[in-house]
């Protein structure tokens, strides 16, 4: 069976830029990870910071004094108090930790002989890189000493000669042979380029910026006497000879001003070509040494308060250790993770989408073994918040939907995650509760009211009242369809089942003469809109806005209401505005929470609450503490989930069709009462409106269940129905136990893939339920 589409997964992964280099590292031609280095400084570990620094920088002492630090120009802290003084911090690190520097060459089983012509920063960087790789390197320098330019270009106060000497000492320790006053020319002889080429496996030219007429004849030169070379591969006219290029800094500038770190980059680039050549590898394949560049890591700088740059108390000595630590603490550090900050699900697994996507794809590819990301995949509520926040519109909901579909196709979906919700959906679609009728007395239908399975389950009287309102306002007949839109099947990744639901809905709609559909539920609106292309589907709220508001309003709760939009209606702007107008019409003073586009899920979305209630409770708990006012919603599940977590919440229909003195205190009906409400609703509607004879199903057993026991059952997803079935079976003679200590009967019953246990006592004509629990595993005594 088909797994996830690898190309699609790659495209998703690429959208999350969290792993891109931060601005400082992207701007540094050597891509020093300043963020990681500063992190260590911040923690007071300058030795570890120095290790990060020296791993990338060939001349730590020199660079700490004279680096032209393009990282600082790029640093995003500039927008909030001033760019980090990365250069000055590096100097403090070097002061503190230089003695810990240990250079050693790798063991190389086939060391080669390499001549480097030119002992400036570029040539010596190349020599260093190749020596570290275990090659035998000889440097030929025309001047009396290497790095001559540094000795006279810089004031000793800026670059103390001792710093140069220290770094050069490290080169000798690596075994690099530096020959001075050794000016190489073309042709033959001990310093003739032709002889050097013959005597070495490769030659690297690092002549700096000046012309090299002295090399004419041995290799090809340009018209202005520079080495003729390919800037990408560093190849020259001779296959064994490579040359260091001239860095483009700042990015895009052909040849910018001299940059010490740029020169080191040039040498490193040429050394990489030499190394590839010596290994017989391609000079260009998979080569991404892009030098100094821009970062595409998104950083929300506005989140950070400005902090002023730390000024050294003795400017000519640079930062003290303490000052360096204080300055390093100003590094944000740069990261995106905007979505992670907003979503409790993303936060709870400790990483960020790029990593999650990789894990999900790996999980998908597992043939044998533990699929340890299953639960994570089923914990996303597919609410779309991350996509709204992400600078690249990455939607984790899309990713997990594909993952779930693949799990279902391959039979890897853990049954416990969605069984309960799918069973609830099957019930909502069953003949016991679903029905479709043209308006009482009508044969044709211009409209169809589709309240959605949850509104009717949560507050059936509202479905009935809205239906009466619509019949009064709309001409041409308003049919009624009580059914489920199929969202649970879609969210569960059950494509086949979802297809069946859609086909059944289409058939109902066709049978009623293809009326215009009006729904009260944001999820139904979204689902029918997406999967019933032929249907015209409208939201109840926009219809009301157009046809006039229903009359009669509740006594308002005191104070303002904070409005929460359902996540499935994140972009339904007309609906959002109609609801707000409606609330105003009802006299409510409404204030915004995050605004509709940044709304969160109540946990029902994506069926996340069934796979990971811990995470969805966190999502809801965070949402309900955003404002102390009562919440106003227009989704039954949002309202009930807020109520379940202890937040006073209203459905807007609680205001429009008053019932009870304090509708915001209405408790969450829970799954069992929702089922009862659905059953009763069908019987009542068909009897009252259509004059059919339907008896309200009455429970066979009189069960007494205390509120706390009921809440505990809800948490465990155990229905009163399951408990009743268990008690009934036991009383009819099924095996059961007596707990003599507690004086209770303990019974179990297997229904479908679940065994339900109940502790109960008989009381009068009925039974008192003390607790219930369930499991999926089957246990049987082994025949002895």
């Amino acid at each position: 069976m088909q797994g996830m589409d690898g190309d699609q997964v790659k495209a998703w992964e690429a959208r999350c830029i969290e792993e891109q280099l931060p601005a400082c590292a992207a701007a540094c031609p050597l891509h020093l990870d300043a963020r990681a280095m500063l992190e260590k400084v911040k923690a007071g570990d300058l030795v570890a910071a120095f290790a990060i620094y020296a791993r990338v920088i060939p001349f730590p002492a020199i660079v700490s004094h004279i680096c032209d630090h393009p990282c600082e120009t790029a640093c995003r802290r500039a927008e909030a108090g001033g760019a980090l003084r990365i250069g000055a911090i590096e100097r403090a690190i070097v002061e503190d930790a230089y003695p810990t520097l240990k250079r050693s060459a790798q063991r190389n089983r086939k060391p080669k002989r390499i001549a480097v012509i030119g002992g400036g920063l570029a040539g010596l960087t190349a020599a260093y890189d190749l020596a570290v790789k275990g090659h035998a390197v000889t440097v030929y320098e025309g001047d009396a000493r290497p790095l001559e330019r540094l000795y006279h270009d810089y004031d000793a106060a800026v670059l103390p000669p001792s710093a140069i000497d220290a770094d050069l000492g490290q080169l000798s320790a690596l075994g690099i042979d530096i020959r001075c006053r050794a000016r190489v020319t073309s042709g033959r002889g001990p310093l003739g380029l032709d002889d050097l080429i013959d005597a070495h496996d490769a030659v690297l030219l690092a002549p700096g910026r000046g012309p090299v007429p002295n090399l004419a004849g041995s290799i090809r030169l340009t018209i202005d006497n520079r080495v003729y070379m390919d800037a990408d591969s560093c190849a020259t006219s001779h296959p064994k000879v490579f040359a260091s290029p001239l860095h483009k800094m700042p990015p895009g500038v052909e040849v910018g001003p001299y940059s010490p770190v740029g020169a080191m980059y040039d040498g490193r680039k040429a050394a990489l070509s030499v190394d590839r050549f010596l290994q017989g590898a391609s000079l260009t394949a998979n080569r991404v040494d892009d030098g100094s560049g821009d970062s595409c890591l998104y950083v929300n700088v506005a989140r950070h308060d400005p902090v002023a740059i730390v000024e050294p108390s003795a400017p000519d000595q640079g930062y003290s250790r303490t000052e360096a630590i204080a300055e390093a603490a100003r590094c944000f550090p740069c990261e995106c993770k905007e979505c992670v900050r907003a979503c409790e699900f993303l936060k709870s697994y400790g990483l960020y989408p790029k990593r999650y996507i990789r894990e999900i794809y790996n999980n998908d590819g597992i043939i044998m073994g533990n699929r340890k990301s299953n639960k994570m995949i089923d914990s996303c509520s597919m609410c779309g918040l991350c996509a709204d926040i992400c600078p690249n519109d990455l939607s984790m909901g899309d990713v997990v939907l594909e993952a779930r579909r693949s799990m279902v196709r391959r039979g890897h979906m853990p049954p416990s995650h969605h069984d309960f919700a799918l069973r609830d959906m099957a019930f909502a679609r069953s003949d016991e509760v679903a029905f479709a009728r043209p308006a009482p007395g009508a044969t044709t239908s211009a409209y169809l009211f589709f309240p959605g399975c949850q509104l009717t389950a949560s507050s059936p009287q509202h479905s009935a009242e809205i239906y009466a309102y619509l019949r009064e306002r709309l001409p041409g007949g308003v049919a009624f369809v009580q059914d489920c839109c199929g969202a649970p099947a879609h969210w569960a990744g059950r494509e086949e089942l979802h297809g069946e639901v859609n086909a059944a809905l289409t058939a109902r709609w066709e049978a009623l003469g293809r009326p215009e559909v009006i729904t009260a539920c944001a999820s139904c609106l979204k689902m029918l809109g997406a999967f019933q292309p032929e249907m015209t589907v409208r939201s109840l709220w926009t219809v009301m806005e157009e046809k006039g508001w229903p009359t009669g309003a509740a006594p308002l709760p005191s104070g303002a209401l904070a409005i929460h939009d359902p996540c499935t209606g994140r972009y339904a702007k007309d609906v959002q505005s109609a609801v707000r107008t409606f609330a105003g019409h009802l006299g409510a003073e409404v204030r915004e929470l995050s605004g509709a586009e940044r709304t969160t899920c109540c946990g029902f979305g994506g069926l996340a609450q069934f796979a990971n209630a811990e995470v969805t409770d966190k999502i809801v708990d965070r949402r309900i503490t955003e404002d102390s006012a009562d919440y106003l919603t227009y989704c039954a599940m949002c309202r009930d989930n807020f109520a379940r977590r202890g937040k006073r919440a209203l459905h807007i229909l609680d205001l429009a069709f008053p019932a009870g003195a304090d509708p915001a205190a209405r408790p969450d009906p829970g799954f069992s009462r929702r089922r009862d409400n659905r059953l009763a609703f069908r019987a009542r509607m068909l009897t009252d409106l259509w004059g059919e004879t339907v008896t309200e199903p009455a429970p066979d057993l009189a069960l007494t269940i205390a509120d706390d026991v009921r809440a505990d059952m809800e948490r465990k997803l155990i229905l009163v129905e399951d408990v009743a079935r268990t008690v009934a079976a036991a009383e009819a003679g099924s095996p059961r136990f007596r707990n003599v200590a507690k004086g209770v009967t303990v019974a179990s019953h297997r229904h479908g893939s679940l065994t339900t246990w109940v502790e109960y006592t008989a009381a009068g004509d009925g039974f008192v339920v003390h607790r219930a629990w369930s499991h999926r595993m089957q246990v049987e005594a082994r025949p002895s």
Partner: protein
Amino acid sequence: MSNTIPEGAGNPADLLCFACDVPLEMGKVEATYLGQKFPVDLPRCPKCGFVYVSEDLALGKMLRVEQALEDK
């Protein structure tokens, strides 16, 4: 996976089988989930073999084993 589920199995001494009127005893039991079978020791009626799964066991170790099998 271990072949016993000892932790949280409950105190069978308090329970009497309703039909046989004898206390439960620990005994060999076969657990099955998703086509996987394995032996465990659980309290059961020594006469008719009716097995008891306590709440602690159902929501503890047994749940973890179920989840592990679901992820296989």
